[in-house]
């Protein structure tokens, strides 16, 4: 890779790092896995970057790689979680149940919110994160995920409805 392209990619990675970190965290990747996921995104950037010098195009590509990498992580996690409840149950039973210092009320709510977010498929979750956490607009999200802006808006609306429904179903407290 020409040195100038290498410098451009390095600058881009420097600039995008905080947002990529936030994206990965908001996509529900466990803290212990986040640095690995981010490193893998960087390595993909070095090895598979698209041709050309368009920094905006490269930046969108980078975010798409990060979203796809998070999706892959969730798929692996789902396979593991298929056996997770049984393992958790066995360990909890053998340990005599939960300690009383666990799950004060605020943490209960946080667990419910996390669970509701986890129930969303990775695509709607990614849309929510990109729109409402990283504050990309629908057009930009469409460019990142290679979708028409109207499709993004429609999917975002459904994702919001799903999230609200999932939280309501989980028993999340509703302060009135």
């Amino acid at each position: 890779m020409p040195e100038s392209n290498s410098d451009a990619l390095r600058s881009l990675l420097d600039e995008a790092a905080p947002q990529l970190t936030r994206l990965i965290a908001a996509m529900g990747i466990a803290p212990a896995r986040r640095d690995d996921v981010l490193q893998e995104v960087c390595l993909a950037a070095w090895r598979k970057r698209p041709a050309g010098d368009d920094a905006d195009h490269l930046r969108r590509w980078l975010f798409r790689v990060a979203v796809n990498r998070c999706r892959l992580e969730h798929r692996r996690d789902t396979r593991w979680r298929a056996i997770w409840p049984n393992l958790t149950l066995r360990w909890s039973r053998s340990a005599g149940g939960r300690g009383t210092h666990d799950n004060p009320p605020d943490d209960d709510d946080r667990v419910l919110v996390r669970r509701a977010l986890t129930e969303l498929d990775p695509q709607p979750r990614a849309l929510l994160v990109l729109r409402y956490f990283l504050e990309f607009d629908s057009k930009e999200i469409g460019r990142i995920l290679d979708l028409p802006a109207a499709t993004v808006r429609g999917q975002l609306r459904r994702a919001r409805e799903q999230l609200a429904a999932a939280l309501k179903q989980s028993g999340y407290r509703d302060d009135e």
Partner: protein
Amino acid sequence: MTNKHCPEFAEWLVEFADGESTAERAARVAEHLDGCGACRAAVDRLQRSLAAARAEWQQAAAEDSPDFRPTKRGLSPAPCFRSRFRSRRVWRLAACAAAAALLMALASVPWWLPRTGQEGPPPGTLARNAPPESPPTHAETTAPAAAMAAIDPASLQTEAEIEEYINRQSRIARLSVSAKYLAAVPGLEKEAAAAREYIARVARGED
């Protein structure tokens, strides 16, 4: 969640809840909400669920992975690696080594766990072309495993503790394979030693 009773307003509620409706549409929805408790509740749920999600994302992002922080120099590995890497070439070599090590990590975990009398990688992996390396001391090799063994999985009580335990051990396994790979690359012996030191800290829960 779509309000079956007011289908004509259902697709405008998200936009309204976010304050992004046009003035005309916002006025129509507001007028409708005055007389429709179901839609009012739906808007309320949309707003609350988004606020809850944002709070969760903020907290999740604040749970910084302790061995990785974006810096002015860029996306760099853990501090103990970063401080040793003086040149881009070395960083790239290590980045590629880490990538290869990640792919090997799952298959490598069983043999990594120290067994009596075993040193170095198993036959058929790096051994054939690897330069002679100073073997790690017994303490360096066994410290992570000893720290892992000190935690009794049966003592873990919550799902969060169990997940953290498994993630930590997975991380240790991956880092260890990376360290062995680094040790096999000429010129990176010091980085490999720093990596083993860092791995031992992770295993002790100090990082």
